[in-house]
């Protein structure tokens, strides 16, 4: 699946976009975040405070308990500040 990062989440993670194949026991967004945090300091920094992390599964705003099975694209970003 494709992972996307925006704004300071992108800067801390050190990447804008990547293709990953998480292990089978990674079932929801929360699991995915835990798994990402094991992949390096950048991810650990990006996801250190989950209260300021928002996510979208296949371009829809989603909660952390959203299942990721079948998802093509998951994005992580701070609360939006447009307008």
């Amino acid at each position, binding site marked *: 699946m494709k992972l996307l990062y925006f704004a300071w989440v992108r800067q801390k993670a050190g990447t804008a976009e990547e293709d990953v194949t998480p292990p089978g026991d990674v079932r929801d967004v929360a699991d995915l975040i835990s798994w990402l945090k094991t992949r390096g300091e950048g991810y650990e920094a990006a996801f250190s405070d989950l209260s300021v992390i928002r996510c979208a599964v296949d371009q829809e705003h989603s909660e952390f308990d959203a299942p990721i099975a079948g998802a093509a694209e998951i994005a992580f*970003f701070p609360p939006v500040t*447009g307008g």
Partner: protein
Amino acid sequence: MIRVQTEDFDIGAEVAALTKGRPGIGAVVTFSGLVRDTGGISSMELEHYPGMTEKELARIETEANARWPLQATLIVHRVGKLSPGDNIVLVVAASSHRDAAFQAASFLMDYLKTRAPFWKREETGDKSHWVDARESDDEATAKWKT
């Protein structure tokens, strides 16, 4: 109608295009947001999530049209590098009656502020920082849920 673009927009031209050929329109409300020049910001960078942005803006527009009797709506949001005084966003709601136009424009902005995936980074001198989301924007959105 929704557009995401780097170019500026002209409010008068947008309103004229929107009202043309729609004789039932009696009231047009526009909101435009500008880069404020406070605290010495030298420029601002608008990042967005291509694809999801368009989907969210279209959804917000559909929701507004379901709630109020509107003849036309428009959302234009700029991305990329902007300077103090530059336009950021334009929202237009046109209706037969002014109350629907005012309510819809306000609703469109409140939802855009909390749902549309845009992020602002301010540059001040040689420093830059990402703008924090404001709690008041969440509260503004929540008031439409009653």
